[in-house]
């Protein structure tokens, strides 16, 4: 479905390419090729915002994620951001593979797609409404498909075009990074509701049912997935702290004796309220924390339900040295409401705190007396950042480096192409995030590789980064949630594709991973990316992990070699 916000019209378009581009990541790059403007900036009204699912979406367990693709306000280049929630199944069961949104609406708008509807609802009255409130109101606008629809929406930060504003997906998940929220803000798109119906009837043969059952059993019993079902990703906090690979206090430290206050165990023990799942996933890794707030003296309370995970706890917990879980949950809740990416927010505020400490900025810039550990100041700062309350915060909302270039302090701006993910595991991760496609810890398992390899073998690391990306690209074309990557081996994936009638794809899986990786890189290169241009700030070179001090020459050689290899392999 291609939607034009300016004309308030849409149409269904069909494309060739299932066997070459598959879906998800591959489909997204195909659609950007068709609809994207390569020589215009990210906020040109005709730039497309793409949501893509894959051939297996909604057919098997954990085929539960959607790939979004767009030209990013952060670096003005092609990027992707992935999310779960109900988006994938809603798109699949509305009978679509993908949605492309072009144009700019004249007024703030909410779009409804699915169940025989395509509507453009004026939503001026939703201006500046926070993400949670927006969700409630959009729900009340729509009477149909309760429980089988996805509501994507932005907060005030997206409306104000912050380069790391996110798109919230069904309250507890996000198209988090690279500023999708600002793309929507520039289009005057406040919310998109996708109504999933029963979709086209798919015949479930005996072979199919048996395969579904066996995969369902694997994902609900396999050891690797148990961790997500149990403590969730926060199980990694203690582990990484022990490995001296957990960023604390703007990466001044890589471990702390305070870890037990803020570990996954602590959260589960005292703050975990309940669990939830993305539609189509029986693992249910969403962990919702609970904090109650007294708002009046005579025992008047409200409560917050806040989804927490490893990255948010790193970003607004350890990175800010806030060790009270209740405080981190409060900060996360405010970040959620204003509609910012929590990872970038934490790293940005950590930099601002150190900059204030060092005197390169003053209270005039920060408006709050930011100091490591002081949750209440950060709660307020999150809103200053999201609303661009003054010149300093407007700049900071464009990216930590943008602010550091102006005020100084680039050395300790923890940015590797994008604000760092929560892993100070070593050279392979730093080289990876700084060059990789999404500047994300998820492009390749580099942080995991670091934890298993003390030897500094350049060739082996390089080969790993390249091959792992290709494997993940294939999964991200189906679209599999990467938490299930150990279950969806090539063999299992081939069985699924065969059972669903995609024999062509199952036959060419090997080459498809590489080919699609190539397509998406070429798309990014065409929008101006030059691998190797991101330099690694000094702070990353000063840390110590379980392997010892960072090996600066090795890091530089790896960073440079990786950049060259990407150019060699994927340039046209």
């Amino acid at each position, binding site marked *: 479905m291609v939607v034009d916000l300016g004309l308030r019209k849409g149409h269904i378009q069909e494309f060739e390419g299932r066997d070459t581009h598959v879906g998800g990541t591959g489909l997204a790059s195909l659609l950007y090729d068709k609809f994207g403007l390569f020589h215009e900036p990210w906020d040109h009204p005709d730039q497309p915002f793409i949501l893509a699912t894959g051939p297996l979406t*909604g057919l098997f367990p954990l085929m539960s994620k959607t790939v979004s693709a767009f030209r990013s306000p952060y670096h003005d280049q092609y990027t992707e951001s992935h999310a779960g929630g109900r988006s994938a*199944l809603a798109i699949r069961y509305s009978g679509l593979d993908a949605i492309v949104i072009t144009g700019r609406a004249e007024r703030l708008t909410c779009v409804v797609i699915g169940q025989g509807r395509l509507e453009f609802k004026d939503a001026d009255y939703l201006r500046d409404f926070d993400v949670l409130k927006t969700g409630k109101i959009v729900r009340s606008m729509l009477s149909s498909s309760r429980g089988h629809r996805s509501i994507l929406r932005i907060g005030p930060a997206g409306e104000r075009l912050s380069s790391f504003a996110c798109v919230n997906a069904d*309250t507890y998940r996000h198209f988090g990074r690279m500023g999708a929220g600002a793309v929507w803000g520039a289009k005057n798109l406040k919310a998109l509701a996708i109504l999933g119906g029963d979709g086209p009837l798919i015949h479930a043969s005996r072979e199919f049912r048996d395969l579904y059952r066996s995969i369902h059993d694997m994902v609900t019993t396999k050891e690797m997935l148990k961790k997500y079902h149990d403590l969730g990703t926060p199980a990694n906090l203690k582990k990484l702290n022990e490995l001296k690979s957990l960023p604390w206090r703007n990466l001044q430290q890589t471990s702390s004796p305070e870890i037990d206050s803020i570990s996954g165990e602590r959260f589960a023990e005292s703050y975990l309220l309940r*669990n939830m799942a993305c539609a189509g996933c029986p693992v*249910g890794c969403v962990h919702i924390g609970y904090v109650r707030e007294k708002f009046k003296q005579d025992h008047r309370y409200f409560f917050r339900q806040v989804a927490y995970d490893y990255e948010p706890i790193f970003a607004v917990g350890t990175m800010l040295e806030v060790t009270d879980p209740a405080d981190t949950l409060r900060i996360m809740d405010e970040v959620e409401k204003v509609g910012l990416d929590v990872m970038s927010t934490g790293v940005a505020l950590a930099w601002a705190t150190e900059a204030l400490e060092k005197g390169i900025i003053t209270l005039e810039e920060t408006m709050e007396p930011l100091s490591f550990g002081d949750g209440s100041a950060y709660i307020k700062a999150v809103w200053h950042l999201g609303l661009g309350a003054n010149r300093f915060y407007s700049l900071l909302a464009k990216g930590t480096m943008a602010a550091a270039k102006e005020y100084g302090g680039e050395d300790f701006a923890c940015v590797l192409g994008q604000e760092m993910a929560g892993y100070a595991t070593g050279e392979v991760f730093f080289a990876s995030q700084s060059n990789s496609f999404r500047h994300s810890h998820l492009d390749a398992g580099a942080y995991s590789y670091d934890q298993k390899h003390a030897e500094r073998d350049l060739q082996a690391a390089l080969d790993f980064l390249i091959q792992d990306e290709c494997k993940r690209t294939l999964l991200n074309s189906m679209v599999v949630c990467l938490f299930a990557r150990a279950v969806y081996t090539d063999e299992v994936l081939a069985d699924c594709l065969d059972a669903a009638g995609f024999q062509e794809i199952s036959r060419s899986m090997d080459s498809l991973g590489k080919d699609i990786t190539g397509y998406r890189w070429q798309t990014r290169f065409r929008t101006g990316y030059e691998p190797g241009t991101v330099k690694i700030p000094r702070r990353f070179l000063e840390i110590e992990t379980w392997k010892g001090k960072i090996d600066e020459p090795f890091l530089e050689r790896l960073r440079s070699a990786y950049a060259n290899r990407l150019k060699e392999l994927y340039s046209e």
Partner: protein
Amino acid sequence: MKKLVASRMERCIGCHACSMACSMHVYRSLSWLSAGIRIRSTGGLSTGFEASHCMACMEAPCSSACPTGALEKRKGGGVRVKRDLCIGCGDCAPACPINAIYLDHDSRPYICIHCGRCVDYCPHDCLELVEVK
């Protein structure tokens, strides 16, 4: 005779595995809606989930509303669905007092037949088959 009861919905995580199991095993299709059990939030994801399914009432007004005898009253409550007799008139759905019948775009009904295929798929044991008293 048994019937399906969603006894522990306070544990539900909204994964829809039960719906997928029913649509696959009973209706030979695959969907989160064309199934005898369907999961909805009770008012946004922050408020928990409810399961919509036939509660095996003895009266079975859906059966009375059906003009072709496609819904046969079942001992123990609820109905047996004879799909080859169904003409897709859609009269059964509005007859159900708890909106437990789902109609697809061809007006074919999807009704829980209390077979229990979904019970095993729930990762949190929210569902069970209980003996009808």
